[in-house]
Each structure stands twice: as structure tokens, then as C-alpha cells.
């Protein structure tokens, strides 16, 4: 059915809403990629079978939803209307959930979430600190809708913003509203979105293109994927509004091929939006037409850089181009092009619906709205979190993240993906926004946030990120290609105990100039991990160089495992797990490690239950 006017949309929404009774029991099973990997498909299937077998279909709905962001605890099952929250649900739990919770209203204790701080069990989703402290404006609907059915999105006021824009606002008014909201690009650089649209709108050349950048490539980051998987229509609606404002006739979604579920859900969403008259010719009965194509990327990190992405869509090697000209003047096929990140597009309908004034009240002076972070690393609650800009790192780590596991000391947090910087524990009260992160030598990036504890070696961390950028640099310009390679080499030497004190000066000089002279954003930011670790953890570098010691016990060439006499009970567990048979000793006697045979894999350290293996 094609919607021909705004009233059609209102009618459709009312009709959909009338079919759903909000008081009716609804079992939602998260089937985002994370939960699927933990077996969510089987759990959902088991629910379907069991509900059918017991004849509960008239009383109980089953809904497959997108990612809730709490992937570590998956598969997640939330039972509406009370929003009872069960985590790590297995196929074997399904019968019990139906017979106990759904039919008798009883809570199954073992499936409840335990707060790592208070050790208390929590029953309802909205009481879990991980969710409670968030502000899920963009991400919130992921857990409520079935992303493969447009009706759910429409029922939650989906496409209202589009109807408003097409019938009540001029393109310039839309741009002005976005400008007033203070929205900035969520892909990394934080350029004001409204100004970017304006520049593209003012170009005389036609046709114009818009692109959704879904080439998310930061290790450990998956917010764009989750949004595309869990709420694809919000991104499409944002793009259509953007196209109307800019005057574009065609749009592309550049999404990496490694995201099969995101691609599948996008294809479904696009087809449905076309069928409903929300994409394609004469959208909602107006004379505005806009097509969207999905372009699969081959997984090069550098293709997230906008000029490289454009080259890739055109079928050329994904290499950045010098600017100017900017894509707004000469982008895809040398035509005016506006490119924004997935999250930026998803913010647009929200701003149109709630107004720029409302939106600009969220966040800080220069950074408005919310930001979705991928909180990972040495932290109790890992997952995707959406928070207002300006929230402190402390809140992120201790309240939402639930602190550091195993009572370890918080050491640093790395933000902004592989090109971000490491922020030390001393700056834990730093408010997270674009400017503050840049001031301390890091960046917002696409929203990666890796937490590190005392067992993390900062030199090794810098080396790890450089190994990533070394391989993912396109290799076009000298400073990025050769400079990162040389920095990596120096860091590698330091972690092997071959560093000199003069290396630190050379490293700093290299990092500064690579940042200053590289062609694109990749090279201009890749040295950040080196610069920030040198700035905040210089002592750790010096210990590696002067004492040939790795304080965190990570760098294999600088550590030594030995048995602690007082703690060893001679259980021989270490002896059994050692892959090189470097450990000897009789049962119930002190074990001994042959340093010549030891390959420093750490298996004994992990296996010992009595803290009898020490690292020096």
C-alpha cells in the first residue's frame, strides 16, 4: 500500500497501534549479531514452538528485536509489559520461562542480572544500572521493534518527521533546524551537520548525491551495525529528509560486506519503504523523488574516509583524494555530494520531531545530543551505551560500566578507535565531548571506548594500535605509510628490550610530523596512541628502556614466570597446561619453571588457582 498524504500515515499508524495491546504479554528476544552468536536464534525458535504447542498465541506475542547493546549478557530476553529481564538464556530455559514467568508470574532467579557492584539481583530492564544511566534517544527503539517489519517503526511515530518536512517545511527550514540543533557529524571529525548540508545545497551542479557512511571499521566498535540491524528505518528516514533538504535525487548506503545482517535488514527496510511510498518516486504523494542504493564495501578501514569511500563506490581503489575540492562541491562522479555517518542520519528524524530547541538542551555547549559508545575492554559491563554528550568518564566506567573486574585498578581509557588517544586514570572526571577529548590528545571518533586496567602495558597498547593503522593505511602518502611503519618498529624494539632513550625523542618527532603532514584523516590521527602514551605514561616507556622491564607483565621478552614458593601446593595444574613441558616437580611438592624452555605464554599463570605463579 502506497501512502499518498500525511493523513494516510496517521491512519496506518492508528490501525497498526489498534492491533497491539500494550498490556498483552510480549516476549522479545534480542537477535542482534552478538546475541545470535550466543544462540539467540535457537532460543527464539524454542519460544515460537512452545508458545504454539501450549496454544498461547492469543495471549502471548513473540517479537524478534535488534541489538539492545548489552551483548555480553546475551541472549537477552525481555518480557513485556513489565520488562522482566533475563540474560544468557538458553534453549533449555524456555519451557520454564513460559510455565513459571509467563503463566504464573514467577521470577526465575538464576536468569536475572546481578549488579557487579552491589551483587544484587535485578528483575526489570529499566532498573539495571547499565541501562538506567543511559539516555537512549537513538538506540532505544532497537529493543522494541522488529526491524524486519516497517509497521513497528511506524507505530512508534516512524516517518512522522518525513511527513512534517515534506508538507510543512521548506528545504532551507530543514537545514536551519538542523543547524540550530547543533548536531555534529558522528563519524569522527564532528563537523557541524547543518553547515555541511548548506554547502551542498548551495551547489548549482546536478544531480546531487547523499551517502550514508556505514563503513564502520574500528576494532571493537559496532554501534553503526547495531543501528542498521535493529532500526534501519530511522537511518533511511534521516537520509530521505537530508535528500529533501539538500536537493539530492539519489543516495547510497556504503556498508561493509562483513555486516550481512545489517545488509539484509537494510534491503528489507528499503523494499518496504518503497512499497509504502516512502522512498522512490513521489514520496508521500509529493513531487519529491529519491532513490537509495546499497553499496557493499570490501572491508578496507580507509574506505571510511569520505573521499576514499567515494572512490570505492565509483569502482576505483579506495584511496583518499586531496581536498579541496570537498565532496560538497565535487564528490561522487564529480557531483555535489553530502556524506554522513549512520548515527548522524539517525539523529535527524529525532531533531525534526522534537525540535532543535529540545535537542540542543542535551549535551554540552559545543557538543549536542547523545553519543553511542562501544564500551569494551577491562570493564564489567561491556556493550553499546548511549549517553548525553558531556558525561564524565567516571560515570561511564563506574556507573554504566560497573567498574573494573576482579578488583583491579583502572589505568586508562582509549577513545576514538585505533587513532584515538589513551586517557589516564588521573583524568577520569573529564567530560566526554568533542573538544575535551581533543584537548587531552584523543578524539571522539566513531565512539570506541576501550577500558584498560593495571595489567595493560601502555607501550604494547600503542604498538597494537599502530600495527592496525600500519596495515590499514592505504599506503598512498609517505608520512602515513613509512612513518607509521617506522613508529611501529621503534615501539616493537622497546617492547623487546632493545629500546634506547633517544628513541623517545625520535618517536615524538615522527608522531608529530606524521600527524601534521599526512594526506587524510587516517594519517593525521594514527599517531595519537603514541603521543598520548608518551605524554601520560612516559615512565612506563622508560622502565622498558632503562630497566628492561614491563611493569604490567605483558611484553613477553621482558617478563619471567616463576613459582612462588609460599603459595605453591604442588597440585601440578601448571605442569599439565604447560605446552612446552617447561614445568617440572612432583605431586604435592614445589614446582619449577625451566626458563630456557618457557615460551612465556602465560598458561600456567592463568591455570594456577593459588596465585603461586608470579610474573616479573
Amino acid at each position, binding site marked *: 500500500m502506497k501512502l499518498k498524504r500525511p493523513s494516510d500515515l496517521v491512519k496506518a499508524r492508528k490501525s497498526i497501534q489498534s492491533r497491539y495491546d500494550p498490556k498483552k504479554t510480549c516476549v522479545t528476544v534480542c537477535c542482534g549479531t552478538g546475541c545470535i552468536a550466543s544462540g539467540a536464534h535457537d532460543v527464539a525458535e524454542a519460544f515460537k514452538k512452545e508458545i504454539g504447542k501450549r496454544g498461547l498465541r492469543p495471549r502471548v506475542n513473540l517479537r524478534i528485536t535488534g541489538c539492545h547493546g548489552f551483548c555480553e549478557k546475551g541472549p537477552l530476553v525481555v518480557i513485556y509489559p513489565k520488562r522482566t529481564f533475563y540474560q544468557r538464556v538458553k534453549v533449555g530455559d524456555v519451557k520454564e520461562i513460559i510455565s513459571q514467568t509467563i503463566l504464573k508470574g514467577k521470577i526465575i532467579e538464576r536468569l536475572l542480572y546481578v549488579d557487579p557492584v552491589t551483587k544484587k539481583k535485578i528483575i526489570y530492564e529499566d532498573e539495571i544500572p547499565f541501562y538506567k544511566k543511559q539516555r537512549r534517544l537513538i538506540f532505544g527503539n532497537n529493543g522494541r521493534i522488529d526491524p524486519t517489519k516497517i509497521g513497528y517503526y511506524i507505530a512508534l511515530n516512524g516517518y512522522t518527521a518525513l511527513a512534517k518536512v515534506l508538507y510543512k517545511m521548506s528545504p532551507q527550514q530543514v537545514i536551519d533546524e538542523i543547524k540550530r540543533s547543533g548536531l555534529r557529524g558522528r563519524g569522527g571529525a564532528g563537523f557541524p551537520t547543518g553547515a555541511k548540508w548548506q554547502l551542498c545545497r548551495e551547489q548549482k551542479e546536478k544531480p546531487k548525491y547523499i551517502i550514508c557512511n556505514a563503513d564502520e571499521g574500528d576494532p571493537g566498535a559496532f554501534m553503526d551495525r547495531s543501528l542498521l540491524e535493529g532500526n534501519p528505518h530511522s537511518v533511511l528516514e534521516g537520509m530521505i529528509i537530508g535528500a529533501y533538504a539538500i536537493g539530492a535525487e539519489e543516495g547510497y548506503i556504503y556498508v561493509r560486506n562483513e555486516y550481512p545482517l545489517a545488509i539484509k535488514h537494510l534491503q528489507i527496510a528499503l523494499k518496504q519503504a518503497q512499497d509504502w511510498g516512502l522512498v522512490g518516486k513521489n514520496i508521500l504523494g509529493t513531487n519529491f523523488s529519491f532513490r537509495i542504493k546499497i553499496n557493499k564495501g570490501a572491508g578496507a578501514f580507509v574506505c571510511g574516509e569520505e573521499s576514499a569511500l567515494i572512490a570505492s563506490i565509483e569502482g576505483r581503489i579506495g584511496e583518499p583524494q586531496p581536498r579541496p575540492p570537498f565532496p560538497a562541491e565535487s564528490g561522487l562522479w564529480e557531483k555535489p555530494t553530502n556524506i554522513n555517518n549512520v548515527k548522524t542520519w539517525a539523529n535527524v528524524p529525532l531533531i525534526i520531531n522534537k525540535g532543535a530547541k529540545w535537542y540542543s538542551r542535551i549535551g554540552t555547549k559545543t557538543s549536542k545530543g547523545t553519543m553511542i559508545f562501544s564500551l569494551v575492554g577491562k570493564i564489567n559491563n561491556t556493550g553499546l551505551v548511549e549517553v548525553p554528550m558531556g558525561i564524565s568518564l567516571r560515570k561511564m566506567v563506574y556507573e554504566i560500566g560497573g567498574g573494573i573486574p576482579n578488583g583491579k585498578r583502572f589505568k586508562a581509557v582509549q577513545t576514538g578507535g585505533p587513532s584515538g588517544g589513551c586517557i589516564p586514570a588521573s583524568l577520569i572526571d573529564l567530560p566526554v565531548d568533542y573538544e575535551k577529548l581533543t584537548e587531552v590528545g584523543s578524539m571522539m571518533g566513531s565512539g570506541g571506548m576501550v577500558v584498560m586496567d593495571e595489567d595493560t602495558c601502555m607501550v604494547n597498547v600503542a604498538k597494537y594500535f599502530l600495527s592496525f593503522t600500519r596495515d590499514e593505511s592505504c599506503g598512498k602518502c609517505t608520512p602515513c605509510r613509512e612513518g*607509521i611503519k617506522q613508529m611501529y618498529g621503534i615501539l616493537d624494539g622497546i617492547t623487546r628490550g632493545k629500546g634506547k632513550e633517544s628513541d623517545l625523542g*625520535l618517536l615524538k618527532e615522527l608522531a608529530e610530523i606524521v600527524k601534521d603532514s599526512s594526506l587524510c584523516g587516517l594519517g593525521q590521527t594514527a599517531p595519537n596512541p603514541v603521543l598520548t602514551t608518551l605524554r601520560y605514561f612516559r615512565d612506563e616507556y622508560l622502565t622498558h628502556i632503562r630497566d628492561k622491564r614491563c611493569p604490567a607483565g605483558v611484553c613477553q621478552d621482558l617478563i619471567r614466570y616463576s613459582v612462588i614458593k609460599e603459595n605453591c601446593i604442588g597440585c601440578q595444574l601448571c605442569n599439565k597446561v604447560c605446552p612446552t613441558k617447561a614445568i617440572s616437580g612432583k605431586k604435592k611438592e614445589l614446582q619449577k619453571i625451566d626458563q630456557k624452555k618457557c615460551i612465556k605464554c602465560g598458561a600456567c599463570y592463568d591455570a594456577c588457582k593459588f596465585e603461586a605463579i608470579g610474573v616479573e
Partner: protein
Amino acid sequence: MQSAKLAMKNEKVTKMVKLTINNKKMEVEEGTTLLEAAQKLGIEIPTLCHHSALKPYGACRVCLVEVIKGSKVGLVASCTYPAEEGLVAKTDTKRVKRARRLSIELLLARCPTSEKVRELALKLGVKKTRFKEEKEECILCGLCVRVCEEMIGKSAISFINRGADREVTTPFKIESSECIGCGACAYLCPTEVIKIEDVIKYRKLDFWNTKLELKKCKVCGRYFIPTVELKYLKEKIKSFEEIELPEEVLEVCPKCRRRILSDKMKEFIGG
């Protein structure tokens, strides 16, 4: 009507912009790069990956200059950056020199035996590299790849891999079915790592793992042009009448071509 159109076109071409380079004010046509503008003022800017016949590329970074635009100051590649109205550029600041020196020092580490790199390094004040040396001979300036694509129209070679593993080669590193052996790549290669050798009836391009059969000169009988190149040129030159040359001209080696011409001139002048 037509003249009006032409006038408009001309107007577009001759739009001028004013800018300042090293405190010298100048006016250039819109679209001129900073490198070209500086050259007009006689300011020397080193380059490695630039060639005036090819599209600007901006990869080697030895032509960096400092650009001041309002409150923003930044380094840009002068070979790609267009002159803009009111722009202020400086080619000899400390920051510029430091950046250029580092790029050439990095290239010197990559190709320590390359004459061209060593020469430029010395000129920029880099006597030796502080970085770990490699034994590469190619600086990845991309001139070969670009001339093959932009001027010859073949794209027989390209970059492969990313980052530190980047290199120039033929598809799958095997004998190229596209290479016509014209030698434009070797002609432009600044480090002279691409070598071409004619051995009796074959042209050998070892760097591209390619060997092509040669054709004899119709006059002297010496092997001189790859058969595939001759074929390609004939296809490319659609009308020999238009260029006022007989088709056979391609089948005569340059030496004989010169001799025939000079013989004709002798006849004409009567010497």
C-alpha cells in the same frame, strides 16, 4: 549566440584570483595550483610524485607548504592545492622544512641506494636517515601507474595491497596482457627502477614480468616496436589523414624516419 557562449566559456577560463606567496602578491588563473603559482614567482618547491602532464596526486609530501586561511594554519601539498582568493602561503617556514625533511628521510630509509632520493635529501639537509633502512628501490610515487592510465590509456599496472605492503605491479604479478611496452613508465620513474631492454626480437620489462615480441622496421629491418604497441597505436589513431601522416609512418623506426625526413629536406632545399 555562439560567440556569446564562447565568451562565457572564455570568461570562466580567465577568472583570476589574488594570493600571496612568501609575502609576494600575485594574480593567477583560477584552478592554478600553489606549486604552479610558486614556480611563476621563481620559488623552488621540491617534488617527487608530480608531473605537469599528469593529474595532481599529492602523495610524496615533499612539496608541502604552509597555508594561512583566516585563523587556520595548516600544511598542504602545493601540487594539489588550488590557489584561492586571499590565500596566504609560505614555502620556507620551519614547519614546512621539518615536514619535508621527515618525508625525504623516511624515503631515504626505504630506498637508501636511490640516487634521486639521496640527492633531494641532501638538498633538504638530510645527510643520513635515523630510521631502519630497507632495500626497496621504488618510492611508490605512482608516476608509472598514472601515466599508464592517464596518458597511455592502458592501466596495465597498478598498486596492490595496502599500507606498508603497498607495491606497484601487474595483475597477479604475472606477465601483463595489457602492457604494450611503450616504456612511458620507465621514462618517468624517478628512481630508475623500471628498466627496459630490447634483446634482438624481444622487449624485456623485467620489473613488470613482461616480455613482448618486436616488429622490424620496414626500411632498415631492425626490431624496434612491440607488435602490440603498433596495433594499439593504429587503433588509437583513427584517421591518419587528419594527422596528415601515412599509416606506414608507425612501421618505420625513428632513426629511419629521421633519415627519410632529412633526405626529403635535402631535396627540397637542394643541398
